[in-house]
């Protein structure tokens, strides 16, 4: 039987140290590669959410352009403490509060409000779109867009 000398023992220690070093290097390399792929997935989810929220904001701005009067009076009615029903109706559109289940899953909601500048003499409306998207990595991502639209108000003629 061959005796293990101290020289042989040193070689074994050296070989094991080298193997450990290569293992650590290799595993950290693999980890960095997998993290990079994950960050691409996160970036895609963020872009999908941004683009969809921007599109919903466009629809909301179209509604405001078409129907500014009902929002103004509904918001003023609420601000004066006279009721919230009209504003609730204005905010309740299914096209602005819904979900997408096509290529990805997302839920979104939209709300309109009036900013009380100059005690409602001006028409300063605020549109808020909140979108929750399930990213490809399975995590939830929220995107919020707030847009203020300013305009002059024409008084009603009796």
């Amino acid at each position, binding site marked *: 039987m061959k005796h293990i000398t101290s020289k042989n023992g040193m070689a074994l220690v050296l070989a094991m140290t080298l193997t450990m070093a290569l293992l650590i290097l290799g595993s950290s390399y693999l980890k960095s590669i997998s993290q990079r792929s994950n960050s691409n997935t996160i970036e895609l989810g963020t*872009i999908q959410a941004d683009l*969809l929220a921007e599109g919903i904001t466009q629809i909301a701005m179209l509604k405001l352009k*078409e*129907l500014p009067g*009902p929002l103004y009076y509904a918001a003023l009615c609420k601000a004066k403490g006279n009721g919230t029903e*009209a504003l609730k109706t204005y905010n309740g*559109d299914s096209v602005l509060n819904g979900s997408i289940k096509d290529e990805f899953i997302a839920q979104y909601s939209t709300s309109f409000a009036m900013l009380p500048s100059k005690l409602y003499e001006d028409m300063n409306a605020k549109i808020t779109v909140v979108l929750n998207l399930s990213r490809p990595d399975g995590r939830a991502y929220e995107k919020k867009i707030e847009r203020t639209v300013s305009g002059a108000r024409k008084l009603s003629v009796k």
Partner: protein
Amino acid sequence: MIPIAGLMGYGGKATLKDARRITAIQMLDKTMRSLLSEPFNEIPIGNNIVKSFNNITLGDVSVPNGVVYSVKLTSQHINTAFDYKTVNVHTEKFNDTNPLSTDFGSDETLTLNDSVLKLSLTVSWTEEKSKEVQVSAITFRANFSRRTI
């Protein structure tokens, strides 16, 4: 040493694969943002449109690293129904600065059939010689230049 060299090779392939995916995501983002600022009436309607228009590049797009991406647009009008309550502003009791809940009338709906487009864009390319992969996004484009009723 051979497995280590193999690992390095795998790492290089993964980096190139990542780069191809990043290019596709950037292409998707850039094209969609351009679509959001294109004139509404100049956006074509249809499924899987590959014909370029204005500043929008569709169809097969080659990039310097030799990869060919296929960019397809699906564009359809969607019906939009906007709910609101009418306001009885022409009554004697109506106070312009203090509207009451009784000043509001029935629920009304403004329906627009051709003022919003749903835009779906897909960028696809080939990985590992035959495996097709894709990234896609959805947005909406509203027609702000339509005549208000």
